[in-house]
């Protein structure tokens, strides 16, 4: 779909400014508690903090000892304690306990809590209830955005997803608005904002109010267009198995804050290695968006090239050798190291995936996406459960089944749920309740007439036939949003055509050519139409929370696109996957656009479902 005449995609704005700002503000806040102090850091803030300031920086500003918040009594001899925490009730209670036990022991210290990225009202309420309000000073460190790469910015707030979409607590919406405001004031002014989802709408409003209050600076925009996407618009995509390299690495090794820890099975030594995965890793940046089936051949080609480069040494005279060592060798060694790491990772991925019979699993997923041979897919899931194969995997398949079929037939729901509880523990009743609340694993509302007919027919024929009939009837009975969306937006390419994964023709390549991610397709369609016109039927099915607005009060207008307008910020509220990022990168290359992904957190099927467990 590459259109001739498109310029190359513009380069992304410089987001390192965000890191500088965050670091400077942290220093400023630390200086608010002059003198030596011990710093307690919330566990999940450690990695983000690590990306913007090192221990030396903290020491320079009189941080004496560093501790991880562990919700246990503390051992610190310092007279000043500083707590760098998320605005969570449990942590604030723990700080209160620390203060109260000092009080009981007659010990005087100064306490400061720095909330990141902001303080919630409930935090003050807890301090007050615990009787320590006034003993503790509080501040907020507005570290909203952490650039993970040149085109990925994370808010590092995985709890956003559960709290907003499951619990229905909207307090993080404002945080999203604040983050947007920060981006707008540094890289804006934006000229268009598109959105889908209820949370997107509220975040937009929250930002707009801030923007109205603040003065307008005139600067040349780096980013022109903004997209806000609620995770609940599309749960299918993040629940699919990832097959592009970066997604697979995340699924299997869990990338944390842009860095991954490869264990001994990858490094083929007895040590684990932490590697930053971003565009600076020249090997990684070339394979991250590739379908896994291409990765091996690419890596071996790369290895051959490397060998050739090394071989150049042969027959060099001293002078040439000197130049080689000073100019090339270091780079080659670095590349060598990275190459062997990624080869190790790929082998380890292969091993794990072969063991779990990945091929069968993918086949089942693809049938679900296609709505073809659903009975067989259900049997597969059933077996998965009865063999007690991975608890999260089984759940993932169940959710995919429900999402693609618009709910399970009541009898299937009952049977599969019972089986699941038997295999993985009855306490998963809570998990099922959560999944139902979220709408990702539900029972179909029975279409009465058909059900009656079905059961009558079912009595006359054997089970297998009845199953097939049930399929036929149910596909008549329900209007599945996913099916209808899939048809309307051509999400599932025709399966009779060969799909060449080395030369992808559309975003479906990220799922082996079986499925175009809904979230990204919506972005593509809206950009193409410069709004939602013509997508009325689609918006009805994604719950009508769509909007498209332009600066100056009017709707977005067409016309020649400036560079800034071709830089498009897509903000995922509730998380996005590396596969979605890969799809957007593909779209960007095709259309001469640069996508910047902002997300509340990087997610994948494992993280998404684990957030819904109640343990």
């Amino acid at each position, binding site marked *: 779909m590459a259109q001739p005449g498109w310029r190359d995609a513009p380069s992304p704005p410089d987001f390192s400014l965000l890191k500088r700002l965050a670091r400077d503000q942290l*220093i*400023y806040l630390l200086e608010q508690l002059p003198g030596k102090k011990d710093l307690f850091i919330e566990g999940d803030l450690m990695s983000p903090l690590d990306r913007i300031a090192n221990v030396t920086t903290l020491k320079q500003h009189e941080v004496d000892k560093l501790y991880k918040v562990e919700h246990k009594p503390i051992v610190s001899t310092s007279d000043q304690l500083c707590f760098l925490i998320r605005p969570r009730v449990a942590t604030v209670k723990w700080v209160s306990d620390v203060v109260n036990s000092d009080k009981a022991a007659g010990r005087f210290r100064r306490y400061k809590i720095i909330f990141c990225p902001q*303080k919630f*009202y409930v935090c003050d309420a807890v301090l007050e209830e615990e*009787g320590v309000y006034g003993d503790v000073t509080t501040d907020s460190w507005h570290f909203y955005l952490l650039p993970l790469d040149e085109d990925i910015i994370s808010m590092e707030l995985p709890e956003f997803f559960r709290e907003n979409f499951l619990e229905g607590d909207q307090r993080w919406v404002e945080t999203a608005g604040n983050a947007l405001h920060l981006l707008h004031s540094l890289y804006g002014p934006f000229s268009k904002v598109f959105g889908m989802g209820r949370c997107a709408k509220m975040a*937009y409003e929250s930002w707009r109010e801030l923007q109205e*209050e603040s003065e307008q600076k005139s600067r040349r925009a780096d980013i022109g267009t903004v997209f806000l996407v609620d995770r609940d618009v599309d749960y299918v995509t993040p629940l699919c198995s990832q097959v592009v390299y970066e997604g697979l690495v995340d699924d299997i090794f869990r990338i944390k804050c842009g860095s991954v820890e490869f264990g001994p099975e990858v490094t083929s030594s007895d040590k684990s290695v932490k590697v930053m995965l971003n565009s600076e890793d020249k090997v990684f940046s070339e394979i991250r968006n590739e379908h896994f089936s291409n990765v091996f051949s690419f890596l071996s080609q790369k290895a051959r090239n490397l060998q050739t480069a090394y071989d150049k040494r042969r027959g060099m005279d001293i002078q040439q050798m000197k130049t080689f060592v000073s100019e090339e060798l270091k780079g080659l060694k670095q590349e060598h190291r990275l190459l062997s790491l990624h080869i190790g990772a790929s082998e380890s991925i292969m091993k794990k995936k072969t063991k779990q019979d990945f091929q069968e699993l993918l086949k089942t997923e693809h049938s679900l996406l296609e709505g073809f041979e659903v009975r067989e897919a259900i049997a597969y899931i059933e*077996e998965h459960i009865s063999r*007690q194969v991975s608890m999260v995997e089984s759940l993932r398949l169940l959710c995919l089944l429900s999402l693609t079929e618009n709910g399970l037939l009541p009898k299937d729901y009952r049977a599969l749920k019972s089986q699941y509880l038997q295999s993985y523990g009855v306490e998963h009743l809570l998990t099922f309740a959560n999944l139902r609340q979220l709408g990702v694993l539900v029972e179909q509302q029975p279409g009465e007439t058909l059900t009656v007919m079905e059961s009558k027919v079912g009595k006359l024929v054997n089970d297998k036939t009845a199953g097939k009939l049930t399929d036929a009837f149910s596909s008549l009975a329900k209007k599945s949003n996913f099916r209808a969306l899939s048809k309307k937006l051509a999400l599932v390419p025709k399966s009779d055509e060969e799909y060449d994964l080395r030369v992808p023709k559309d975003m479906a390549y990220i799922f082996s050519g079986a499925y175009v991610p809904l979230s990204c397709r919506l972005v593509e369609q809206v950009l193409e139409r410069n709004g939602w016109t013509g997508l009325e039927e689609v918006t009805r099915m994604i719950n009508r929370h769509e909007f498209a607005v332009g600066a100056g009060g009017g709707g977005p207008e067409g016309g020649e696109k400036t560079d800034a307008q071709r830089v498009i910020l897509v903000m995922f509220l509730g998380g996005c996957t590396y596969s979605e990022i890969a799809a957007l990168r593909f779209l960007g290359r095709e259309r001469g656009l640069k996508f910047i992904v902002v997300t509340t957190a990087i997610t994948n099927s494992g993280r998404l479902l684990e957030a819904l467990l109640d343990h």
Partner: protein
Amino acid sequence: MNKGKAEEDDYWHSSKYSAFTFDDDDYDFTKLKESQRAVNSIRGLVEDDCEDDEDVEKVSWSGEPVGSKSPSSFLRTSGDTQNHGFPKIQHNPPLPRQSSGYSLSSLFKGKGGLNTFRTHCKLEGRQVTITGCVSYSQVLIFLKRTLSKAILFRELAEREVALRHFIHLLKETGEQRILCCKIHLQLLQYKEHISIKDENQRKDFLKTCLSLPFSPDDSTHVQDHYMLLERQIIIEANDKRTDTEIFKKHPRKASILNMPIITTLYYSCFYHYGESEGTFSSPANIRKTFRISEKQYFLTALGARAKLKQWSDVDRLCNTTNWLGYTKKKSPIGFQRVVEILHKNGAPLQVLQDYMSLVDNTEVRVSLAQKFKCHDIVINTYKELKDRQQLIVYQSKLERGSPEYQVIDELIHSLNIRWKN
């Protein structure tokens, strides 16, 4: 509210001056000029308690707006959107408005607000400042403290979004018990069992959950949970001190407490196979109590017995006797899976072959046999299919002179077989 205090309150409500806070008295703004500039540049997105000079709405105790400013920003009509900025989108979803004489509605209208509704007090000396529009949790905390529970729940019951915020707030602060008696949150109560570490206390707690108004299905599951733990406690107490052969040979890796039903069944098939149905620890008893399907039972028992290499048990598990007294082998999971499980557990070739020959589908049978190197099966199957070509292909993969090789040699030269090719 006390009318006499109105004037004083009015000061707090409408004052444009900063509310006094305890964290702003020793700011030294001369420090770190550069950082400060940086911080200032992001000012405005900062929710800052002590900087109250923005144009914010003032809300009185009753929730009515104070002053001339229109009630709240989202009630503004789209007409007053400034031209240079972004327009308001129709605020959606509309938050429920109730016309109960109660003025809570106006409080609930403010969604995740940007400003602060302060009611914080230092322990010594409660003072109140209200500056600006409100957010849910702020209002809820305030109302929870000041309203009787009955009125609060009456109001919340009509506002789903607010109710969900409230539930989450209570879950976070560990006060969910307030809810259990008021709203039917059986699951929330059931959830508490997770935090009970002592198994007997946990069991007793689960017993109290049995009477909660669950749906019929869930009620069965909770009942199962209770019975399961009850059994596990008995089994655990016995097995901990048992030192029979099997426990010596295969020491337990972990306690059986709090394991899922299927894991418990596996455990019982492993350590208590063959016990009579009367005992709690017997597989038969567990199977019956928890209504375990034939297929599931077969799979689990097969796994456990194969792990112990008790091939005769595997045989018995598969044997069925018809009314004429003939025994026949049957597998509810298909013989392919049986073979795979047996192979995984290192079954001898003979055992594998016995089960492999029972695989109906010849294609599947051959591929299994090739995978696990059961030459006899491959050869016999091709012979059965009269497929000479395949036999020759297979022979070419074998070591010349090996017994299998010779068997095939004899076969393909045999004149008694009518080959199809």
